[in-house]
């Protein structure tokens, strides 16, 4: 590592400078080999630090759940021409946004061939493949990945500074100059450190999804795709009034379909999440896509959706938190981006941790650079700009009334009522708004609010 006074002292090598009561075994411990952790380990190792990356699963990505689209441009910082080797299922060239009621569907369908070639835009990928690939980059840079090992707690010195982690293995204490908690949503380490408050269900959603098998040619034919082209559908409505939305993504020979549901709404509705997926699968606009598909996998996972206003402090003495552990998923309606934010935050956390270790100063003050740098980048800049999005997206009217309003309006516009003459568009809007319990004033107010949030 860079600091000559504090040489690398990994297990089996000479002891290093004392950190707290005992010497540090390594410069940086990263807990969790998801996108945030792998990126942190990679950046720290590249910055010259000795790194141990702990993962509880048997391999990176073995336990990880997400919808299925990764926005890869952040990987420019990892590897030039990353698209030549990243384990991709399909490159998204079509994005559809669907507004659903029980019987209606309005789809805005966008397609561009620009996204079919480098540097691409979104890609569908399996997390078992993607996370293993990214962690492989970290180990290639010198980080040591330890799997099937759970970090069970933080080690602190007499002054209360974090100086390592405890694991579930014999002699399982490991000391480091800096610990990065990248252990995902509801992070136990971040909570133990006092950075993350007790999870508030209001700021979390439950993501559930099924992976369904369909032959590759059938997917190509049904979704109008060729080769490695992919489709990403976001859905609003048809979730039995539970705030949230649905998604459908195409992989090579499977389709992921799922829903993201607000926890309080789900609890109040007393509906099991798989029933919402069943509703989506049975919707007349979706069912024909999935005819004959067989379920291969079912998964559920929490998503932090509090956004900027509910993000915890990101550093304390000896500890940084990154990715979902710090609530960094951007869930703003048409955007559900977590993996790129996790990688973005992980890369910065890794570098800042390595520099702090090299400087022999892992104080909270020094580690505050992490947040400063994230503010300058998309990670916190996007969150800050869209800070009002979670609230408005999950609001009652957007979730329960507007899907019906929009669908009714479009249906009445396209319904030919001869011999009655065509009514004016404003009259139709009034009628649709009334039928769905929305006043035109509320409509205008929400329009302004949305405009302000997404400006």
């Amino acid at each position, binding site marked *: 590592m860079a600091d000559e006074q504090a040489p690398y002292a990994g297990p*089996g090598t000479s002891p290093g400078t004392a950190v707290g009561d005992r010497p540090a075994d390594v410069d940086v411990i990263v807990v969790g080999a998801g996108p945030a952790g792998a990126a942190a380990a990679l950046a720290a190792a590249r910055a010259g630090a000795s790194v141990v990356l702990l993962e509880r699963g048997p391999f990176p990505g073995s336990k990880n759940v997400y919808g299925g689209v990764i926005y890869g441009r952040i990987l420019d910082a990892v590897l030039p021409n990353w698209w030549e080797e990243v384990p991709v299922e399909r490159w998204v060239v079509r994005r559809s946004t669907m507004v659903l009621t029980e019987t209606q569907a309005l789809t805005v369908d966008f397609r561009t061939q620009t996204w079919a070639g480098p540097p691409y835009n979104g890609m569908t990928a399996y997390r078992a493949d993607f996370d293993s*690939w990214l962690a492989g980059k970290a*180990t290639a840079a010198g980080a040591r*990945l330890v*799997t099937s090992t759970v970090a069970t707690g933080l080690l602190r010195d007499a002054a209360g500074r974090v100086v390592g982690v405890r694991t579930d293995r014999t002699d399982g204490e490991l000391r480091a100059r800096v610990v990065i908690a990248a252990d995902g949503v509801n992070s136990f380490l971040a909570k133990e450190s006092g950075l993350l408050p007790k999870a508030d269900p209001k700021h979390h959603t439950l993501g559930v999804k099924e992976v369904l098998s369909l032959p590759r040619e059938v997917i190509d034919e049904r979704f109008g795709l060729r080769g490695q082209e992919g489709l990403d559908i976001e859905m609003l409505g048809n979730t039995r009034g539970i705030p949230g939305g649905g998604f459908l993504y195409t992989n090579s020979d499977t389709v992921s379909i799922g829903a993201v549901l607000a926890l309080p709404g789900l609890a109040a509705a007393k509906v099991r999440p798989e029933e919402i997926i069943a509703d989506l699968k049975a919707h007349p606009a979706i069912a024909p896509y999935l005819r004959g598909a067989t379920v291969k996998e079912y998964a559920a996972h929490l998503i932090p959706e509090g956004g900027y206003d509910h993000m915890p402090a990101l550093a304390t003495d000896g500890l940084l938190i990154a990715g979902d552990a710090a609530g960094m998923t951007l869930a703003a309606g048409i955007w559900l981006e977590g993996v790129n934010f996790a990688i973005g935050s992980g890369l910065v956390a890794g570098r800042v941790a390595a520099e702090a270790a090299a400087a022999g100063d892992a104080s909270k003050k020094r580690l505050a650079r992490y947040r400063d740098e994230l503010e300058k980048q998309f990670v916190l800049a996007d969150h800050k700009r869209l800070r009002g999005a979670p609230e408005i997206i999950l609001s009652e009217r957007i979730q329960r009334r507007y899907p019906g309003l929009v669908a009714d309006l479009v249906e009445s516009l396209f319904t030919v009522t001869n011999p009655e003459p065509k009514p004016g568009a404003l009259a139709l809007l009034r009628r649709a708004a009334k039928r769905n319990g929305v006043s035109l004033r509320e409509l205008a107010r929400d329009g302004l609010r949305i405009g302000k949030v997404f400006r």
Partner: protein
Amino acid sequence: MTNATGDGARGGGPLVVVCLRVTDLRPEVDPLTGVVTRSAHGAGLSAADEAALERALAIARAWSGRVLAVAAGSPIVEGPLRAAAALGAAVLRVAWPPHDEADGHGAAPGAASAVNAASAVDPEPFGPRAAYLADLAGDTRALAEVLVDAIRTVGEPTLVLCGDLSPDRGTGALPAQLAHALGAAQALGLVSLTPTDDGWLLAERRLDGGRRERLRVPTPAVCSAEAAGLRLRRAALPALLAAGDAPVPAARPTRPAVGAVEVVDVRAYRPRARVVPPPAGATPRDRLLALTGALVAHDPPTIIGPTDAGQAADALVAYLVRNGYLTA
């Protein structure tokens, strides 16, 4: 051939060898074509092989001996071997089936390693597909001889342990071949194995009717056993970190990979001929027509998929009813 490394190699005492089969424990089978895809993520040891390793460690401790874990395969076997090294075994990989590893297949450490288990997606992590399948189809004698050669570079084993069956080959014949090649006693398909004070082994094996037989097994011996009655140990963190960095020595077989049985041709399954009464018909032509069903109008084949299992079953039942095989 390089010498094996690891803590266990340093001690003296009897040598207990465990032979580990690393395979994809969750291969994907295409339901339509039957093509099997093996991925590095599923690479690991069967429960019986894990138990064999545990038994080897326990027996070696009782005998104040040392353990050597051997696995034959592509570099993907290094993952489980490192895990064994972290538990104190010396380890040795036998490059098998013999082929050029310079092509990079399976070069990533295996997924079951607890250290540095990440790998890029390798389409053939277990080596070239054809070589892998040919090895499965062949008999295990050549492999047994190569394993014994490799083991003898470390020492003469007092006991060789295996799981009862490998998940992919599944014959359970390798231990018998090993015993033959070593000139050792054998006791296979055991449920328990305990060392006695006088250097023998006490083994139990299932019999019909829920009974068990007890065997006193002399050494040197080769024993295979089920995954029964054991609690597996986990490696300590420092040992795991140390093993994660250590190179795994590889032995390259010098003998040709030909077994006692050479598979020259693979044919379709041919059941025994059944006597079928001659068809009705006055002339040979009528009988031929009746037999072949030629010149009779048939339902054209119907494609009913993709559909869900329930609908497919309904369609099949309707077909059978329509054609008189089932009553409605």
